[in-house]
């Protein structure tokens, strides 16, 4: 069962969520502050981070950026819902998903599983390394290189790129992408797709020109190519 690092300042949530997840067989390590959480990253080696957005000291967004500097571990934000601004900021800082508080353990666990499953589910039947222009995508190694240089991508970004590039020129709606990539079956999160596309673009696109690999089809969604 996955090792989860929970960074949450409120003791009742920390203990409640920790208790619920441990009961379901997860190994949970909890940190009270962002600093403590970052320190645990190196010793605990979590497979997934549950990160509260509002933290004393350095906040969740900053913690997320720090983690992303060194690690591509999946991150799920725990957020006070509806603060759309926070959600978008959190997603753009590199989070893979977000959970609105309060949430039942089953919801949290489903989200954790969905995020983790992304990496365990490579698109089959394709050659291991796809080359699209200057971009080479290693489907089994789950690495992406731009002009020969490795690009570090968060799990959701890799999953999105794999999915889009598996069917070049096919248009996917946000809803389809949500269902394939995030395993979400409800409408809450078109913002997830948009934020992830934005992040992916900053990493793989040529910043000076309009998007080449991931193109927006206005009113419908996104597609990979044509190059």
């Amino acid at each position, binding site marked *: 069962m996955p090792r989860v690092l929970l960074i949450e300042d409120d003791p009742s*949530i920390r203990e*409640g*969520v920790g*208790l619920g997840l441990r009961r379901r067989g997860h190994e949970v390590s909890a940190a009270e502050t962002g600093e403590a959480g970052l320190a645990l990253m190196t010793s605990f080696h979590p497979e997934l981070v549950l990160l509260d957005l509002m933290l004393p000291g350095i906040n969740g967004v900053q913690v997320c950026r720090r983690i992303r500097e060194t690690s591509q571990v999946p991150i799920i934000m725990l957020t006070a819902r509806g603060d*759309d601004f926070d959600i978008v900021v959190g997603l753009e800082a590199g989070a893979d998903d977000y959970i609105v508080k309060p949430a039942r*353990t089953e919801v949290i666990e489903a989200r954790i599983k969905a995020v983790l499953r992304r990496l365990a589910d490579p698109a089959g039947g394709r050659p291991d390394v796809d080359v699209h222009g200057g971009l080479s995508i290693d489907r089994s190694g789950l690495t992406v290189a731009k002009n020969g240089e490795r690009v570090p991508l968060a799990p959701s970004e890799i999953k999105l790129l794999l999915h889009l590039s598996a069917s070049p020129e096919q248009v996917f709606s946000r809803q389809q992408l949500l269902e394939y990539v995030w395993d979400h079956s409800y*409408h809450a999160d078109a913002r997830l797709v948009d934020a992830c596309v934005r992040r992916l673009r900053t990493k793989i696109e040529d910043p000076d020109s309009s998007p080449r690999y991931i193109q927006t089809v206005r009113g419908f969604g996104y597609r990979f190519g044509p190059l």
Partner: protein
Amino acid sequence: MRRIAPLGLRTRLIAAFLLVAAISAVSTAALTYQQARNAILKQSQDTAVSTLRDLMDQQSIQLPLDQQQLQRIVLDLGKRGQPHPWIMFAEYGTLRASTNPVQPTSTVITDKLRRQVSTNPHGAFQRVEDQRGNPYLTIGMPAVFKNNGAYEPTGAVFFVVMPLDAERTTVEAMVAAARQGAIPGLAIAIIPALLAARSVLRPVRDMRRAAQRLGRGHLDTRIEVRGADELAGLARTFNETARALEQSVSELREAEVRARRFASDVSHELRTPLAGMLAVTEVLDEDAGGLDPDTAAALRLISAETGKLAVLVEDLMEISRFDARAAELNPDDVDIAEFVTKTLERRHWSDGRVVTDLQPGVRARLDPRRFDVVLANLVGNALKHGDAPVHVTVRTEARPEQGPDAGADPAAGAGTGGAGTGGARLLVEVADSGEGIAPEALPHIFDRFFKADAARTRSSGSGLGLAITLENVRLHGGTLRAANGAGRGAVFTIDMPLEVES
């Protein structure tokens, strides 16, 4: 300057001013004219009458008169007319004499004068005009002699016809003078009229502008108070009213902001403990089976109530976001038929309890998350409070531009479109097969925490569902109406633009 009425205040003020000036000028002129005219005529008249009487007294008449004598007297009297030369006529029985040799009887002496003369020994006079409109004074005087203190008529009557041309010219000159004086007078009166109108109208105009500004929400609008007249008093009152209004509005706003912040803060504060509780409720539920029945029931109760509380807090948060206008629309293009089907499937309502009639191939631009909430809420309500089958009908309608809320039932309708009342509309109807909504509950159905059935004070919902639904529809620029269908249960109709503006 925009005209506010066909006849503005300025026009009316000046007209009134001129009317007053004209009335006073005309009445003064008329009175003066009448007085002067009477004085002039009376003077001529009196002079003529007394002259004739004197002349008659001096005349010795020997009866009976013959034509010759009569003619002589007439000629004698005719020469001495005062104040103007006059024409003399005399009548005695059948004899007629005149100073005018071609006309023995006058054409301007009336029968009335003849009658008056015959009964009055002092004679009578009358002002007449001939056919050409020339005024004459006619005087008739009988020749009498005194007998033992009583006047005895001799039977001879003398008439004087004196033209009043000179008097008429004088009177006409007076009329002309009055007229020529009145017109420049009226013209000059326009100047004070304009000045007065300006001095009255400027404060009025200021006040109108200020009231308009006030109406547009500039509550700090004040008027400069000039002088100490009634208009200044009005301006002062206006300022006081504006100040009072500003104060109470700002107090209201503060109170509203405080109330909203309170609701938002309460919800936020509730959320943290709830998050912890909700995370462990499954632990309680799972372990309840191994405990004694009372403890198990208590645990399950706590678990269920925690779930309800979490829903309530979420709904409260959502409502406070709407109140704070912090709710955002994230529109996306969706295939509406597919969307509705998925919303129903996701909630496991696709087992025949919900019957759909969806227009295929319609793409709409809306916020999928919010619209999902709207649909789920309406269908969920229909299943909970009404009866299956629930009919969901989706169609589009092209509608010409029209005013907002035209034709909407004011009692059951809620929500105003504001933007985009014309163009393509999306109409979604959710109808259940239950008993419908009680008529007295219909106007309140969208109120927060409203429970249609007073006995069911704690239904499983939070009581905020329809309020949130309505706010979501409004956010899309649409309206939501509740009504009772013909022969069926309650019918909720969403009417919103097919393409919401983001």
